[in-house]
């Protein structure tokens, strides 16, 4: 009995604590007042926080932004046009074209070696060099990167408009509509992309338009499958029934109620279909079906470089690097978005 009393009384006896004014103020030195994991925050804010915490995703985003900026402003950073053959007139009035000049930056060369170039183009800057008929590669590479980015935007458009709507509608209505639409998907999916390109080439002029139409015909399939699967998961949930009870029509339920809830997997799928599309364009241009001269894309530049690889290996490196970085960056951002949009419990 006495023991118990001692234990209970001990702390009171030792520290007769007198509360001070500071005790009733927040301790700002420790950041415990905000619960980052479970605080009530908006969905998109959470996605943002998680995305920017992911180093790889941020690197990917930076690379993409950098490539976009360079492709917008790169070609106008010098006075050369993408199809202009650089040439200079010497004293006797003979024209000399700047064929196959390795990369050169005069001031850097002078800084490194203390010498100047001793040829007619001594004072010109060709950051990536020139190609075998004398066009500036820096301008052409960034001009080509524009084509890749254009393909990326076209893919987003195809995925978002065609694929997503097709999948959502097919999943939502079910029944006969779904069966017919899924047979259509199955048949479209059984035609290899190359065959579609071949058939299109029989009546369309070769060029970027052909590539875009080929993508339009094939690229929506993956997205429609994802959208349909998401729709099947969602359409029997209570909130849909609630919305219907309140008098919402089908279009409203599909695009206003259900779509925002399926946006995660849809964005992820979109990010992963972009590198595939960019790669398809580069591949078709490499083979000679894609972009036509004098325009250029990364793929056709790689092909040019490949033709001269044994003698002028520097020509192939810039377009390859741009393509590889684009693919890497879109994959990193896609991975980052997937993790940010659908966090698992153990990541929190």
């Amino acid at each position, binding site marked *: 009995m006495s023991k118990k009393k001692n234990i209970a009384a001990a702390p009171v006896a030792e520290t007769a604590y007198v509360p001070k004014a500071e005790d009733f103020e927040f301790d700002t030195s420790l950041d415990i007042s905000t619960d980052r994991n479970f605080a009530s925050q908006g969905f998109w804010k959470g996605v943002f926080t998680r995305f920017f915490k992911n180093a790889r995703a941020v690197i990917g985003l930076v690379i993409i932004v950098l490539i976009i900026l360079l492709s917008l402003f790169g070609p106008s950073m010098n006075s050369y046009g993408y199809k202009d053959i650089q040439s200079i007139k010497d004293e006797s009035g003979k024209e000399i074209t700047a064929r196959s000049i390795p990369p050169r930056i005069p001031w850097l060369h002078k800084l490194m070696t203390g010498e100047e170039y001793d040829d007619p183009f001594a004072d010109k800057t060709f950051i990536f060099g020139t190609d075998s008929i004398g066009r500036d590669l820096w301008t052409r590479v960034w001009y080509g990167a524009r084509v890749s980015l254009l393909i990326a935007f076209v893919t987003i458009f195809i995925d978002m408009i065609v694929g997503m709507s097709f999948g959502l509608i097919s999943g939502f209505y079910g029944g006969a509509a779904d069966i017919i639409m899924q047979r259509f998907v199955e048949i479209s999916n059984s035609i*290899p992309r190359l065959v579609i390109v071949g058939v299109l080439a*029989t009546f369309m002029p070769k060029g970027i338009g052909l590539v875009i139409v080929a993508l339009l015909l094939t690229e929506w399939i993956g997205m429609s499958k994802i959208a349909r699967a998401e729709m099947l998961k969602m359409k029997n949930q209570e909130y849909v029934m609630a919305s219907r009870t309140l008098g919402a029509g089908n279009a409203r339920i599909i695009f206003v109620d259900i779509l925002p809830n399926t946006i995660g997997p849809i964005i992820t799928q979109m990010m992963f279909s972009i590198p595939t599309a960019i790669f398809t364009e580069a591949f078709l241009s490499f083979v000679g079906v894609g972009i036509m001269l004098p325009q250029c894309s990364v793929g056709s530049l790689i092909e040019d470089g490949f033709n001269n690889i044994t003698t002028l290996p520097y020509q192939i490196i810039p377009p390859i690097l741009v393509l590889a970085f684009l693919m890497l960056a879109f994959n990193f951002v896609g991975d980052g978005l997937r993790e940010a949009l659908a966090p698992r419990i153990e990541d929190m």
Partner: protein
Amino acid sequence: MGRYIIKRVIMALITLFIITFLLFLLVRIMPGNPFPSERMSDEAIEKKREEMGLNDPILVQYKNYISGIIRTGSFGKGSSLYNGAPIATVLPKAMSNSFRIGGVAILMGVSIGLILGIAAALNRGRFWDVFCTVLSIVGVCIPSYVFMIFLQYFFAYKIPFFPFYFNNRNFLMSSVMPALSLSLFSMSTVARFTRNEMVEVMDSDYVLMAESKGMYGTKLVTRHILRNALIPIVTVIAPLIVDLLTGALVVEKIYGINGIGKLMVDAITGEGIDYNWVLALGILYSAMYIGIMLVLDIVYCLLDPRIRVSDDPGSSKEASDSTAAEGTVGV
């Protein structure tokens, strides 16, 4: 089981039929003229059209075309490629070239990919795991033809160890580089998938159970872990095989292989488009694609009996990227 397979086979045949009809229709109906009009008079063109049966109704033309393929194996004649040689005489040789390279590439990709994936999963966080991760990033980011160009530059030009171009007399040595570069992407994808699946299975309760029964080593890995991890991997391998067949286009260009990919490129990019070749190769590619998908479906259903019960025709035909596979398998 039998019923399921029969159903799939019939479905595949119907799909193939529809696709051949669509291709035929597109190639025949679309504007464009198979004859160079400035070099031929109108009467000559009309005579040629009549001779080739181009004035018949489209359905009759289609019937003749298909019955020609089925009965005599003839795809008609090419118009510009190989001086208009019959397609059936050129095609088998091209197919054998392509399939041999493709076969070596598939074997290399799948076996090395599986071994790497297993090694990575068993040594989590150590050398092979890191190697596997790096390989999968490289495989995704670097298009295979870029890899090919580098292989060719370093191992055929700088160090002339392998022959620069493919040739049939020296098949063994000259097929190493094309097959390796062709299989890079599938190798990395298979390795990454195998690793992830293995890791998932290794963390599951029944593996713990097997271990606590006293099972260990090879037996545990092959009987319990691999058997279950393999099922999803099969879904990745099939689209990859198709990718190998179409991706072979570039390999054939770079290494100078006379295969079907090169024929396709020649048929599209030549001076005049060769309609018959485009049609024949289109049908060939689609038939291969559908055939591979069918085999995959059957293998998948042998491995995992649940597929038969659910009978979702879309579940196994996924795009080659991982997200698409993940997205619908769960449904």
